[in-house]
């Protein structure tokens, strides 16, 4: 088990910078998510931790030891890939024992170890089956078994559920997380799926263009996005961005949106110019008495809730409201924003303005 510390890590491929300068710490036993769109540098970061790529500069500490320039085989980590590579000519038992056999472990020890892993994964009944005829889920379990069996210091996973269909992915995600809760091994997990990251992660690093946009616990990242990128990437539907031009100083708690006063958390810094009033769909309410108006352009039924899309003077707004509430296309309604949840962003830099809501997060992020 291990703590992984990344310090000013940087990777260039020719003139292209894949990872700018990353610094973060993964605590012992954490399930840690590297999240971002394709090309953001998350897989490169993981491959550097694994030793499959060497950093251009910066350091990687596993359990206090600097391993940045060490070979993968000297790092005692286990890697699980998206395409679960199994040896097709071997049965399940041989696939799982292979890493131990190649380490030269005694046969009786291997037996015991494989039996234990099979029990943890619930695959005892298929140990003597060839891997060829297995379902996708069982193949994935075998691949995991092969990673677990060595008792490595940490697990590195590169979109291990990416190839599975939605329903099954949900189940495997739960299984993987439950497995982690039982074993407590430090796990670094790469994904582009924000829901997967929120659902499974203890901590999340959100990356974009090789830069860490935010680092923290899932709910904090959702509630207090440090940048517009994070606010847009996390959450479905994503945060509403209402464009406005205005100025305010520290201590301000309201702004004007199309001549209507709307609330926000007390500001800790000033702004002036083109800004964004950011509010999550579940914090928008339809209200007859509200002065700020919008026209309903679409409604989407989702069971207990519905998503209502509205056209406003400051851009499109989506509201998540109870499906029992009345909303029909073409109506003009008032909109009420839950002021204490609002984040104001600077359009130019994309950065959140500090306020009562997010100051704690912004100062160490």
């Amino acid at each position, binding site marked *: 088990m291990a703590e992984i510390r990344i310090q000013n890590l940087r990777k260039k491929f020719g003139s292209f910078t894949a990872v700018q300068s990353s610094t973060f710490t993964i605590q012992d036993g954490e399930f840690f998510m590297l999240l971002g769109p394709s090309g953001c540098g998350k897989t490169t970061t993981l491959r550097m931790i694994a030793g499959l790529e060497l950093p251009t500069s910066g350091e990687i500490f596993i359990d206090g030891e600097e391993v940045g320039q060490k070979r993968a085989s000297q790092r005692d980590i286990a890697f699980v890939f998206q395409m679960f590579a199994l040896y097709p000519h071997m049965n399940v038992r041989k696939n799982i024992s292979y890493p131990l056999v190649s380490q030269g472990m005694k046969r009786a020890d291997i037996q015991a170890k494989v039996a234990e892993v099979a029990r943890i994964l619930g695959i005892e009944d298929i140990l003597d089956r060839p891997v060829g005829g297995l379902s996708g889920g069982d193949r994935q379990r075998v691949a995991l078994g092969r990673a677990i069996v060595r008792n490595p210091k940490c697990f590195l996973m590169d979109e291990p559920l990416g190839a599975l*269909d*939605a*329903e099954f992915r949900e189940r495997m995600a739960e299984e993987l*997380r*439950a497995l982690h*809760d039982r074993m407590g091994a430090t796990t670094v997990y790469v994904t582009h*799926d924000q*829901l997967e990251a*929120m*659902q499974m992660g203890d901590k999340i690093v959100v990356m974009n263009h090789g830069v860490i946009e935010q680092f923290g*616990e*899932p*709910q904090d990242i*959702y*509630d207090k996005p440090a940048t517009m990128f994070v606010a847009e990437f*996390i*959450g*479905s*539907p*994503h945060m509403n961005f209402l464009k406005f031009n205005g100025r305010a100083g520290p201590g301000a708690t309201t702004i004007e949106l199309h001549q209507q006063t709307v609330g926000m958390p007390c500001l800790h810094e000033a702004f002036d110019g083109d800004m964004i009033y950011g509010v*999550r*769909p*579940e914090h928008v309410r339809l209200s007859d008495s509200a002065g700020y108006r919008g026209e309903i352009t*679409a409604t*989407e*039924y*989702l*069971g*207990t809730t519905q*998503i209502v*899309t509205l056209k406003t003077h400051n851009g499109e707004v989506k509201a*998540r409201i109870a*499906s029992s509430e009345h909303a029909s296309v073409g109506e003009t309604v008032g909109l009420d924003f839950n002021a204490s949840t609002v984040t104001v962003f600077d359009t130019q830099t994309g950065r959140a303005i500090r306020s009562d809501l997010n100051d704690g997060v912004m100062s160490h992020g």
Partner: protein
Amino acid sequence: MADVTLRNVKKSFDTTVAVDDVNLTVNDGSFVVLLGPTGAGKTTTLRLISGLERPDSGDVLIDGRSVINEPPAQRNVSMVFQQYSLYPHMTVRQNLAFPLRSPMLNTPKHEVKRKVEEVADVLQIAHKLENKATALSGGEMQRVSIGRALVRNPSIYLMDEPLSSLDAKLRADLRIELKRIQADLGATILYVTHDQIEAMTMATKVGVLDQGRLVQFGVPRDIYENPVSLYVAARLGLPRINALPADLFAGAPTGATTVGLRPEHIQHGEGKPSQEVRIEHLGDQTRLHLTLDGHEIVTLTDVHTALQPGDTVAIQPRNALYFDAAGDRIA
């Protein structure tokens, strides 16, 4: 556009029954979504209507006339597939115009131009008309491929998971767009998917398929609130409905073996004590994973709850659904 009806349609491949005695009417101007997992018979149903497959028995009617003896071209249906297949060497305009250039249709040139531009406007790709098909993003390509169906004026549009290869954000946009297009044009659409969100948000009527059988047909709200079986109840709703032994809580009617509790239909604070195993903060909702007498239960709680794994939570049902041993709804 026209009414399309399936009457006692049956289709088997070797020993597998793909479509089992399906009766279904897609009314003119409606947006019907068939929902089911892989192998439920969704795609086969579309292929039977388009004429790519012939039913073993039963009848397919378009506008009241039986079409089972007509080849696909004569049926005047248009199909959109999951994988957009555009002509890479052609521009968007040429791709859109292609179906109209068919010798069978013999559309005049100015009419082709008018129709292509109209559809490009609806799909918001008018500014890309002169681009090569290969110079488009995935979402634009899929819009062009939907557009290629829309330029024609068929009896019905048949769509086979057209959004499933797109990323989540684009899918969300196109869901709204497709529904708007359908409403604007008054189009008749039969759409198949395994994605419950697509079914709930777009359909005027949803049909749920189970191993070739149409087990329920109705408006989305009715399917969600009044499922006829446990199978249907499990198709809609995220997180999925909890299926538990009926006697776990008091109040089960006689004959019930399973109680179905949607996560939002579990009341906290009173009832039986359950143990919290895990908590998931998804941002807009927080899920609690509980165990009660060895049964796993997923429920929702306040987004910023102070509950921690290991805590005890008292729970009791509210608006429970009851099912018999066969999985049929009894209350």
